[in-house]
């Protein structure tokens, strides 16, 4: 009996551990960055392909993040385009000199994160390097020599070359890329970047056992769609709330709503198609009593607990790093500041409660002090019924000649539980009011009439957040910004000190021979051309060509 018990216990343990931990060396992902050494404040441009994406048909999401020890510094969610993922990521200005982990990953068939990582060397232009100095004294830490990470050639299937190995600064360099039919990569990375004049070799390559250490985080689930997951629990007892309806809204002039329910563990999911940029999100439960907490689950796995590397003194104090700092400062001085704008390719044109002709613009009338007055004077189909201290909105349907007693009340597209929440809105605060008298459905949501108020500011800040609701900023898909460094600056008076002469993700299929014209900058020195990718079976193809720019 005891043997059987042991066997069962063992089996249960194995079953529990079948929920695998995140894997960041799966071998299926191919990651390429635009360069090796970055300066705080610069952008990392990167591309990712997935080797077995044919077998994982429909895989469309890729996550990317830049991590310090126990901290995610920056992150991106990318949408697949032309069989690959391409993105850019800001390195914060304040990031200290150090070695960081850049991860890209997607969810495998179990939803477990699987991807690859790369160590990134960042130099802070203002000399902030306290953490890096501390790591030098920590046992087990070793120097990371970015200059010695030389990409290897893989064979004749892919070949990149120029006509000669010496060119003049400012010259156009025709680069030939030959790709044999067996190199069936979904996309190839192509980069031409500056390398140190003399490559060091005295610093050891990283040992396998010294890879960044990750926590045993089994809870994270990565879905193949843009998903917000969370849990509803009772505030006092922390017990999960089952079967509760939740609304997801983003303040907008054309209201959209998503509805879901919690499962037996109090867990809920909202899934979306294509949303771009940072979104101001409000999630609320349908019931407003008793008090509940809504907890949002993280979408990024835990950052590494330890990164056992530091930037070697030789790298940090090298003339190459110094030039990189100066170049970054020059680039910043000559580049106008452009705030990041939210991209959107999808336009919602239809409110979820349907189009209506009953639209009122309060600014066309005399100013009224509160919404009760607005309802009384400007909204003939609406009236506020007051009984035993409860104010209730009713909407009259002129065709059916009936009142709807429980219409949906929205402010900037966000449902609010009571008409009382709107009383603070005076005429100047209200831009538009729509009244939908019809009884309608939107999926499983029954709408027994709707009063939709759009504030002048349009951001749901003029009314209080409803009870049992949370509001937060949600980063959705990032559209890659086009890389502008492949050409010399348009203004001839601006200095051209580009260290990356060319960076592009080339989507397949490829011709046997391609010619790419690379415009050399005014910065003399040694440069390297690298073209590479992985095919669908995970085979790596890469070709390297070095050349020199001189005056």
């Amino acid at each position, binding site marked *: 009996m005891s043997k059987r018990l042991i066997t069962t216990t063992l089996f249960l343990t194995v079953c529990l551990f079948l929920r695998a931990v995140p894997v960041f060396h799966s071998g299926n992902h191919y990651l390429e960055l635009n360069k090796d050494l970055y300066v705080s404040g610069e952008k990392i441009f990167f591309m990712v392909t997935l080797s077995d994406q044919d077998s994982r048909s429909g895989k469309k999401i890729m996550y990317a993040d830049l991590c310090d020890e126990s901290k995610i510094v920056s992150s991106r969610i990318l949408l697949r385009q032309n069989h690959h993922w391409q993105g850019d990521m800001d390195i914060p200005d304040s990031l200290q000199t150090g070695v960081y982990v850049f991860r890209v990953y997607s969810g495998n068939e179990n939803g477990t994160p699987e991807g690859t990582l790369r160590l990134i060397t960042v130099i802070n232009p203002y000399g902030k390097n306290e953490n890096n100095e501390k790591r030098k004294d920590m046992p087990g830490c070793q120097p990371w020599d970015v200059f010695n990470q030389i990409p290897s050639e893989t064979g004749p299937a892919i070949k990149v070359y120029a006509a000669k190995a010496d060119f003049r600064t400012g010259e156009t360099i025709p680069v030939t890329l030959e790709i044999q039919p067996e190199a069936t990569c979904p996309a190839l990375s192509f980069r031409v970047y500056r390398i140190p004049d003399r490559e060091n070799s005295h610093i050891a390559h990283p040992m396998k056992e010294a890879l960044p250490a990750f926590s045993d985080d089994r809870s994270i689930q990565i879905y193949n*769609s843009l998903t917000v997951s969370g849990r509803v629990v009772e505030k006092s007892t922390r017990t999960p709330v089952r079967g509760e309806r939740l609304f997801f809204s983003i303040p907008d002039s054309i209201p959209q709503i998503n509805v879901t329910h919690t499962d037996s563990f109090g867990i809920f999911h909202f899934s979306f198609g294509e949303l771009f940029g940072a979104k101001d999100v409000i999630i609320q439960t349908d019931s407003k009593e008793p008090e509940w907490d809504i907890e949002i689950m993280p979408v990024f796995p835990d950052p590494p607990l330890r990164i056992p590397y530091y930037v070697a003194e030789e790298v940090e104090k090298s003339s190459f790093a110094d030039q990189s700092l100066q170049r970054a400062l020059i680039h910043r001085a000559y580049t106008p500041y452009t705030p990041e704008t939210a991209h959107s390719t999808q336009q919602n044109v239809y409110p979820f409660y349907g189009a209506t002709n009953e639209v009122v613009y309060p600014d066309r009338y005399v100013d009224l002090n509160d919404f009760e007055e607005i309802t009384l004077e400007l909204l003939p189909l609406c009236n506020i019924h007051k009984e035993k201290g409860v104010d209730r909105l009713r909407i009259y349907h002129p065709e059916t000649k009936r009142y709807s007693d429980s219409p949906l009340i929205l402010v900037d597209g966000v449902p609010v539980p009571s008409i009382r929440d709107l009383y603070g809105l005076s005429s100047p605060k209200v831009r538009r009011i729509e009244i939908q008298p019809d009884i309608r459905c939107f999926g499983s949501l029954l709408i027994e009439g709707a009063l939709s108020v759009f504030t002048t500011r349009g951001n749901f800040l003029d009314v209080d957040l409803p009870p049992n609701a949370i509001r937060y900023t949600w980063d959705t898909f990032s559209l890659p910004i086009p890389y502008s460094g492949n050409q010399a600056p348009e203004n001839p008076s601006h200095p051209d000190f580009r260290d990356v002469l060319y960076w592009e993700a080339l989507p397949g299929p490829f011709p046997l021979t391609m010619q790419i014209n690379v415009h050399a900058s005014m910065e003399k020195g040694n440069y390297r051309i690298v073209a590479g990718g992985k095919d669908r079976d995970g085979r790596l193809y890469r070709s390297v060509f070095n050349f020199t720019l001189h005056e």
Partner: protein
Amino acid sequence: MKKYFFTWMLVSTLAWAQCEISSGTNAPQENTRLYGIAYIFPVGLEGSPYLYDDWQDGKILLENGETAERVPIRFNRITNDLVFYNKELLKVFRADKATIHSFDFLDPDGKNRLFIKYTGEEVLYRLQKNDLIEVLHEGHISLYVKHFSEIIASNDLHARDKIHPSTFYFLKVGDQTVEVRKNIRSVFRYFPGNKKEIKKWLAQNQLTRRSEKSFTRLVEWMNTHPENFLFQP
């Protein structure tokens, strides 16, 4: 008995583990959300206002690109409305036409009937923008049919109003749409240069001149060599 218990326990644990693993990478989500308006059933009429008397399974493609599969639907010929049954709300709604792109009646025999929302130029009062019409053939020359029913008021005080069904056929070539009768002869008017050719083809294929099937086959054939047929509206 203990053996069975242990076997059952192991099997159920394995099943649980598999469920955990295969929970998949697609988050559970609500099905495609249809926009509907509360439907008022027509009453006091003699005859059926619907294309099919019974509910049929349908596939609805929305303007936002989403598709709702296996929705119980009906087509109201009087109001030209798609009516659907909302299984979650247990209520019947008429689909908001602004959100509908097209829909299919899913025939168990595989003969699906495709309806689209007409967006071309209007043909008098017979074919208006946003009318839901059946596509008999889509191509360079398209053949559409609009199913319509009108209510004929009863003269008798105790009798109910009658529903009179009718169908209107339309040919669309490029941006131009014209009404045709369910008679091959009416096609000659718009393709006067191909009269002999069409007659010959009808004779060869032994098709009648007044059936919908013949009409559809004719348009199919015309679309095989559209360059030979000059449309003269």
